[in-house]
């Protein structure tokens, strides 16, 4: 069964990015290679443009399971955007041993 609405079929190979919390997504980012991050990013980013109207129409109130899965996957795109676009590495430069935990986040 498809993880996402049909027009997001390009995301199917990356369904394991559809994780429920920022902590999960960030941990997966740190555990990934740059090739893996780039590949996911390349598949997902164009959908923000081509499916912008669809995303505008997805109400968070009563969101379907497929759309929630999609939202989580695109939240993971946000998580990987900095390594791909700016840092060119999975972790934040100059951050040393520092870490920041997200303790509260909106659901969904």
């Amino acid at each position, binding site marked *: 069964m498809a993880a996402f609405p049909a027009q997001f079929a390009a995301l199917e190979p990356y369904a394991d990015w559809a994780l429920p919390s920022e902590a999960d997504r960030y941990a997966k980012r740190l555990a990934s290679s740059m090739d893996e991050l780039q590949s996911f990013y390349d598949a997902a980013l164009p959908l923000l443009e081509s499916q912008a109207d669809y995303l505008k129409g997805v109400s*968070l109130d009563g969101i379907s399971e497929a759309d929630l899965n999609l*939202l989580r996957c695109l939240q993971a795109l946000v998580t990987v*955007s900095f390594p791909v676009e700016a840092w060119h590495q999975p972790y934040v430069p100059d951050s040393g*041993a520092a870490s920041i935990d997200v303790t509260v986040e909106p659901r969904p």
Partner: protein
Amino acid sequence: MSPGDLYPRPAEGTWTEHYPELGTSEVSFQDSISPEFYRREQDAIFRQAWLNVGRVDDLPKRGSFFTKDIVAARTSVIVTRDGDGVVHAFHNVCRHRGNKLVWDESPTQETSGFARQFVCKYHGWRYGLDGACTYVHQEDEFFDVEKATLGLAEVACEVWAGFIFVCLGKEPRQTLREFLGPMVGALEGYPFEAMTERYSFRAENNSNWKVFIDAFQEYYHVPPLHTYQLGPNNRDPNLTFEGAHYQLDGPHRVVSTTGVQKHKWPPETMYPSEVLLRSGNMGPWDAHELAAEISGVNPGGVDRWGIDNFQIFPNLEILIYERNWYLSYRFWPTSHNTHVFEADLWFTPAKTARERLAREYAAITVKEYALQDCGTLDGTQLGLESEAFDSYPLNDQEILVRHFHKSVGDWVDAHRRALGDETLGFDPMAPPPVTG
């Protein structure tokens, strides 16, 4: 380019000289590396000043409560909304044998929730949300106890603009509103209550709390450290920054920034995610209109206003952005060279997946840059602790750093005077004042 080219400065020529009490000499950061000075801050500041411990959003209904550990003040407080809707704060300590009253699995971790009463794990004493003792186990075994006199120790607690503050002094010297003064107080009409959707961050950092605050009260470091913020094609570390307006009011301070709004930048100067998500370090571009006029913001009346960065003494920062989201940061010392950083990011509620993604991107942007700061400032602490230099130069864009350290020193000195210690100025080798 000479100072003042971008934005007009006061008649004195610089922001710093507009406040002559600040001086322009180099500043010692002994106050950021000395365990003795930290002990003085604990008594002079964290047990005297009004401290923001949360927002009314943390107490959504009658019976809501949360605990807040204030390590620097050597206590934990319980903040409650009682059956009449009144907000209270108490020392989180049982009246019987001094056990920490409210905690879950570990007494060193904060908790929150909803309760009809608090029950001490140790001997089962119970307290209402108004702090009154309601039950003493085996009451008959005690000698002359009066339950009515065995309530929790109340802590002064006031709410301003939805922000809950406590003051651990026996008698607050000022009301909260007096303490906040006219500049911060003017923000009272800002529609904080419309922004109910929150992301919260927490970090444990290996630097003095003031070292971290210092990085968040000057933008001089942004072009060199955060070159990414300047976009993919514009990473010139020689770019300069000037604040459009600086203002001091008592121990509090503000810097306002200006510039072309991010959503009006040419797309080629931005990252693809920023353009497609319509969001970034200045917040979601498509903001909900809250009000035509927003009270208290942009105190300098600058054109093309972008951000107000209010530094509220001692450890609260409120950042208000032109795109109607706001951030509040709190910096809680845990020793002379460690602290906990808490950040709350508040948005109007997202209604659609697209709006959620825009908010997610703004929030994650804050985290990415803050991580750069966390790492770098651990390095600052290490450098300062080497004591390679006695003092350090600060420029006009760092006026708020200068003012902050002066304010902290003034509070510590005032406390020493109040205790009868007439030795003014900070002497790191002097013994700490005896209290009590």
